[in-house]
């Protein structure tokens, strides 16, 4: 199946998104009539208290889960109208995903993990392309290693290489640095930043960490499944992390 790429200003857009978990006595509304767009070629951080719906937002936007109501468009395609199969194919071609941990198939080497989306798409991955993707994340010499032989930071970098190898419209990352130390976090965030600046990808990242969020062009604050606040401005300028931390603290007081 081929999906025609039309140049759109927004890589991902949610309109009136609702997500309700459970239908029994106590349904939980994780997303509550949320409307939000992630412009092409930007790096957005999603923050908010625990349980505010950040992961749900990411999963629904990435087509991993379905909305209860509202629409999600990725690259102009409405995910709601797609079958499980077509949604999977679209995800494979247009979306990359990085979790906090357990991103890699334990029995496959780093290179094989990177090749995985291409192989699943029925393409024969060019060895050079895979090598280049690993080199990009600084792991050219670890291609033949299995995940158990890599550090946590290295595993996350392999996951990023895999998320980028299909040249997706958008990469979603759910607390990608949550389990890493400061140095490894910085490497991972730098890679995501480069994906945006150097290759024009769109990145949406959930994080708790104001320092991590300071790598983003825009920070979206969620509370109770709704957008509570937004912060634009320049990424990685001095004092930005403190600014974000201040905003978060104020929001949690409200």
């Amino acid at each position, binding site marked *: 199946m081929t999906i025609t790429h039309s140049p759109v200003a927004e890589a991902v857009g949610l309109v009136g998104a609702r997500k309700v978990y459970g239908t029994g006595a106590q349904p939980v509304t994780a997303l509550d009539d949320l409307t939000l767009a992630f412009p092409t070629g930007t790096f957005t951080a999603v923050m908010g208290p625990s349980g505010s719906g950040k992961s749900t937002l990411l999963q629904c936007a990435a087509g*991993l889960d379905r909305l209860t109501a509202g629409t999600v468009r990725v690259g102009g395609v409405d995910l709601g109208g797609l079958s499980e199969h077509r949604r999977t194919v679209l995800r494979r071609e247009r979306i990359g995903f990085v979790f906090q941990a357990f991103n890699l*198939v334990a029995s496959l080497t780093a290179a094989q993990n990177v090749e995985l989306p291409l192989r699943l798409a029925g393409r024969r991955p060019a060895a050079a392309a895979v090598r280049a993707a690993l080199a990009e994340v600084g792991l050219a010499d670890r291609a033949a290693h299995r995940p158990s032989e890599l550090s946590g930071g290295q595993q996350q970098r392999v996951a990023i290489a895999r998320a980028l190898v299909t040249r997706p419209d958008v990469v979603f990352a759910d607390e990608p640095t949550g389990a890493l130390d400061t140095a490894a976090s910085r490497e991972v965030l730098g890679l995501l930043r480069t994906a945006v600046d150097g290759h024009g990808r769109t990145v949406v990242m959930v994080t708790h960490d104001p320092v991590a969020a300071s790598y983003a062009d825009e920070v979206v604050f969620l509370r109770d499944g709704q957008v509570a606040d937004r912060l634009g401005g320049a990424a990685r300028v001095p004092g930005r992390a403190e600014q974000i931390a201040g905003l978060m603290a104020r929001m949690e007081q409200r």
Partner: protein
Amino acid sequence: MIALAAVRGRAASLAGTFAGLTLGVALIAMTLLVHVSAMPRTPQRLAAAPVLVHGPVAPDAAGVGSGVRPWAGPDAVALAQRLAGLPEVAAAVPDRSFYAQLVVDGAPVGDPADAAAGHGWSSAALGAYPLVGGVAPDADGEVAADAATGLAVGARTTLLTARGPAEVTVTGLVGGPGVYLSEDAAARLSPGVPVIGLLLRPGADPAAVAVAAREAAPGAVVATGEQRAALEPVQQAKTRWLGTQLLIAMASLAVFVTVFVVASTFALNVAQRRRELGLLRTVGATPRQIRRIVLGEALLVGAAGGIAGALLGTAAAGPAGRLLVRWGLADPGLEVRLQLLPVLAAVAVGVGVALVGAYAAGRRAAKVPPMAALRDAAVEARAMGPGRWLLGGGAFVLGGFLAARTATAAADERVNAALFAAMALTAAAALLAPVLLPPLVRLVSWPLRAARGAGPMLVRAESLTAARRTAATAAPVIATVGFAVLLSGMVSTMREAYPAGQAAKLAGITVAVPDRTPGLTDAALAAGGRAVLPSRVYAEGLSIAAFGTATGPVSVAAGVADALGVRIGDTVTVVFADGLTERLTIARVTPDGQVDDDLILPRDLVRRHDPSALAAAVVGVDAAALAGLPGVEVLDAKAYADRESGEDSRLLWLFATVLIALSVGYTGIAVVNTMAMSAEGRRPDLAVLRGAGTTPRQALRHAAAEVLLVVALGAGLGLAVTVLPLLGMAAGLEEEVGVPVALRLHWPVTAATVLATAVVAVVASLTVTRRAWRHQAR
């Protein structure tokens, strides 16, 4: 790539599937090779006749074998003359077979089961058996004997035919088996001729002769080459049929159990790797691709197990064939030939079995949502799915219903009801093991609850929390112990009950039976008593077993009546062994399920048309009148009943032991499999124990104790669910045979089954624990 990598990554957890498939394919390859090698062959004594002309082959109404419809003597002789006149035909020999056995030093010699060793002299040429001494028999009272008997030319000896013993002179010695009489004597003992053998001139083409023969003998079958195998002796067909039953039972058990092992392993496999499957889904694997990955794994394991099994089965086929011969379930001439096709078929079955077994797991895997990648996967999957509840509950209800029926049903139905009740209850106990075991563990370990030391507490807690693992270990133990107790108990009880009932019925009566001969002659019948003369007749294209009784109005069994399309009062035209026809009026139709009642005729009628028919026994004889008659033994009721059932019970026992041994083997595989698969999940527990100061020796002891507890409970359950129905069966048997029947459990087999299972389980558990412990230590 993914399936291959996955197989590599979880070699330990697939080892059980591999072992199950290897055993399954080995059994199938072995049985197929033996079966193909045991196909009918042209009898040696007809092998020198390239073309055989015989009557139509009529299938047996019971489906066991077939018979060849004979020609009447004069017709056969006329036909033979016509055939002898064909170009390239050197001679056309009407071949007759009948009972004839020589007595050497007072004892009958030769195959005691062969009731067709006698032939006319001319038949020796059909096997190219040479005259190695003396001259051919040419008059009554002359015979040519097999040189192997050690008789000398000119020796006087006794010849047994259906008429009784007679003094004869050995005029010639033959370089081949059989007893050869003059043509006239042969024609009197076997007036009918089933086969005419054609001997050809040197260099003649059998195919061309066959074409000419077909024209000269319309309505006859003209066989060349392999086709001549249709004339194999009936006894051989029967032996092969028995052997085939065992082979079929083994192969079916292998297929069913292998599907079960594969299915349960793959189900557990998928449950254990939900997170990985979810990850693949997030990365872009479609549900169909996930299913293909699981089936791909099955294919790889199936192919690997198939190849290993093919090698093993090929290696085992020779010994298995020899074993069948030793057990009397195959012709002594059986030689297992190695062939590619049966082995390939077995491998294909193995791969198919792997795919069928993995199919459900593949579907479940395809339903794993991408979100599963985010959740902690290691939650112990529910031990009782709805399917298992449904099957287990259904089996329990069915078993309970049948057990209740056992108490109320008619005697002959009780045995079957008890049998099925036991099978259903065993299946129910195995399926419901996750529910049944925790309370049992609690009960059994209750006295230990206050014991000092960590051991009892740990063993108790472990077997309670890991319900799935406990049940997975116990279920095959329950099934196998139940199966072993049921089968061995049933056979032990039956083989005592039936002879006892028979002996009671014949109490005080003496019975004459054959001694080293295939049957009793007229000389034994003349002394009075009841006897049945078995023969064969041909009607409506069927070969039917006929039994001549003293009084016998013509009576047929219901099944045979259906096959012939006749009812009481109808007449049916039958061809007898002598090739002559009679019109019979059916006076009675008997219900099916009785012994020796396919077609009951007056004994005189049978004797008139089949001068070589032999009685299997004469009931109520005067022992003194039979004294000194060769080939006859007189027994009391008890000895007779034991002898009668001896062969049946030997075969039953053989089947039972082979099947029990097989199921013990599979249980071993299933238990080892469970251990290997649960190894991963036990590592964290072991780490905690280690941290808390457990010594390696203690850890191993706990592991052994836990698995022993589970095996013991499984064995107890297996025994419990089978004993009640077996008691019901004994009660049913008692009513059926009319003497008291006690339930006989076969303790050696039961104990051996439990012991073998326990040893395998403990060794597997210790190996897995030790490896996991070492892993921790690193």
